[in-house]
């Protein structure tokens, strides 16, 4: 198999994080091991832990091209590799193909490559992102096994096997809504990304808003992690926090003002940046208006003993 004769060899490729992405040392080692071993990296974890972002940042840091496949439940998997434009071929066989210069007698002229196909045929090593793989049906995952294992796929109609010229670095993300099959998992390096700790969150904020005052970050983090505890349907995650801090900075809300608002039980400024669902905003509003007090007590009584 042709590999590494190109400009970059796997051994010199190391990823150290970027100016926009906070990389925990553990995740850093993981990315570099996966790169060195030519193995697909499966990242699991809740939304807002930077799974997708990581793929983009690896591509940027190592100046590789990124090929993105966003998965949908209606996908069959094959179209991620290639598609054959039968309609165009039939059309051109009847009305001529002068404008496009394709030859209806040739199957190849009507192949449309999907993200996987493109990354396999590329003349350079790239990053291939399969985003939210858990949205696909389980037979799609089975169809992808050859891709993950041997970096090849077959164009069925003409029985031709396409092998990656330079094995792309495959990053797969999953919210773990549905379980992935064992054969699929066996072919990947799997890592579960934990939600950032307040300490790590500080670094992340500093990367995005370098000149934020410590006081504002303190106040914002307190509010943010408290909100996350309150059991909203969609708890605010990293990107919500960053947007919110952005808004606070632009409007120059000072930390004392923020503290005053919280202490007096008023509605937080720019709440819409933190909570996205109408139901969550309603629940929040009810709570600060005191209407939901009884519900709060109920919750305490039926406290779940999970997770000791």
């Amino acid at each position, binding site marked *: 198999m042709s590999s590494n004769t190109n400009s970059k060899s796997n051994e010199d490729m190391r990823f150290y994080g970027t100016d926009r992405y906070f990389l925990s040392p553990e995740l850093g080692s993981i990315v570099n091991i996966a790169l060195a071993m030519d193995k697909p990296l499966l990242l699991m974890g809740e939304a807002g832990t930077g799974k997708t972002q990581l793929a983009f940042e690896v591509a940027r840091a190592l100046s590789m091209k990124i090929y993105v496949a966003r998965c949908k439940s209606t996908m069959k998997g094959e179209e991620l590799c290639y598609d054959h434009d039968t309609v165009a071929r039939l059309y051109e066989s009847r009305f001529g193909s002068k404008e496009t210069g394709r030859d209806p007698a040739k199957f190849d002229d009507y192949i449309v490559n999907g993200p996987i196909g493109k990354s396999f045929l590329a003349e350079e090593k790239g990053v291939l992102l399969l985003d939210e793989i858990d949205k696909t049906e389980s037979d799609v995952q089975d169809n992808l096994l050859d891709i993950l294992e041997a970096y090849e796929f077959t164009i069925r109609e003409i029985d031709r096997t396409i092998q990656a010229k330079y094995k792309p670095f495959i990053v797969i993300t999953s919210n773990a809504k549905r379980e992935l099959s064992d054969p699929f998992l066996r072919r990947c390096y799997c890592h579960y990304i934990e939600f950032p700790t307040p300490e790590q969150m500080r670094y992340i904020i500093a990367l995005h808003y370098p000149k934020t005052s410590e006081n504002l970050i303190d106040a914002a983090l307190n509010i943010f992690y408290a909100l996350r505890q309150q059991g909203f349907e969609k708890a605010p995650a990293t990107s919500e926090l960053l947007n919110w801090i952005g808004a606070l900075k632009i409007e120059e809300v000072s930390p004392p003002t923020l503290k005053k608002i919280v202490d007096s039980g008023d509605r937080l400024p720019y709440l819409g940046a933190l909570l996205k669902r109408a139901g969550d905003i309603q629940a929040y509003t009810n709570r600060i208006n005191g209407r939901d007090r009884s519900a709060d007590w109920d919750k305490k009584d039926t406290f779940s003993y999970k997770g*000791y």
Partner: protein
Amino acid sequence: MAVTEALIGIKRIPFRIRVISEKGCLMIFVDFFYTLKEYGVPITTQYILEFEEALKKGLAKDIDELYILSRLICVKRIEHLDGFDCAFSKYFFGIEMPRGGEYVDLFSLLESKPFKEWLDKQIKEGKLDFGDVRWRIPPQDLFKKFLKTLAEQNEAHHGGNKWIGTDGTSPYGHSGRSAGGLRVLGQSQRKSALKTIGERRYINFADTAKIRSENLRQALETFKNMVPSGPKTELDLDETVYRTAKNAGEIEFIFRSELRDKIKVALLIDNGGYSMDPYSALVSIVLSKIKDRFKDLKIYYFRNCIYGNIFLDQERLKKYPTEKLLVQDKDTRVLIIGDASMAPEELSYPDGAIEYGVNDKEPGEVWLKRINSRFRYSVWLNPIIKSFWLDAYGTNTLQMIGDIFHMEDLTLGGIKNAVDYINTQKE
């Protein structure tokens, strides 16, 4: 880099391992993989080869990197992480932690209703402090306390019941056969107690059973109902060629809807009665697989036999009228999981139900027949293996139910047969 060299080069590796690796022996790492296996982490030869390759590439320079590397190679599911950590600490640091299995067991026990009720009571009565419970008392100790209280209660009220087992091997002493939740009430004296009065008991068919069976997934994979649905976006090539030829070569495109899986499944599970106890682990595997597989899946619970109400929750508190089930889509595939073993009265007499509070004028048999005639596709899956059906406890009722429903056993083969049976039923 040679493997031995790589091994010797790993920084901060404990002395014990260093000595062995200097002798140039890769066996130690093979040993490590066997340790993993002992702790329930599934290992294949491929992993060992991969590990060797990674060592040659110099990917483990210190013990931390070694940890991350071996974890990446070996742990594919989050539920194996604990087992891995235990194995790693045992092998490399000589520290033995309680096994993963015990933790898993313990947590499922901590989730169980009786324990929660006990804990609630303790906190309310001020015997335990909430903060202590949450942070300071290790769950093992907490659970031991619980067992102690219960043991005392049992001594006092029932003159020493057996449930905190003298006959089990489990570290928490309940009798070894109970694979799922926690046995709190006394073992029923006779299996067919006509009316079991007392607290309800349920087997917790946890979704997160440890054992998984890949084969089962594949067996269920053929269980489909492909129907054309959605917008007409797929080119029907055969029809297009045919029409075009008819048109003397003037192209006419024909589109059709894609085939999508529109299968509906209703799963009825017997989760009560001691006769189902030994099968709870098996049922939970099947349940977790079925849940993954079907998008349109409804689960109902019943105890021993089906009467006028079935239940939406495992505790059998939320009633759901069986009549409502009977007006659901005829094409729903109905799977019933139960041992079909009960007292004959439960099946054929009015008021035969043994569940406290269930008084139904119509015998279970009538309800079962109604379900069978309403749905085109139904199968009874029995956890008792087929060859024991004639000898099993409750063989009478098993035969009677077998006359109403097509019955298969809850084995891989049985499930395949059931799927085949349903797939070959014509409308």
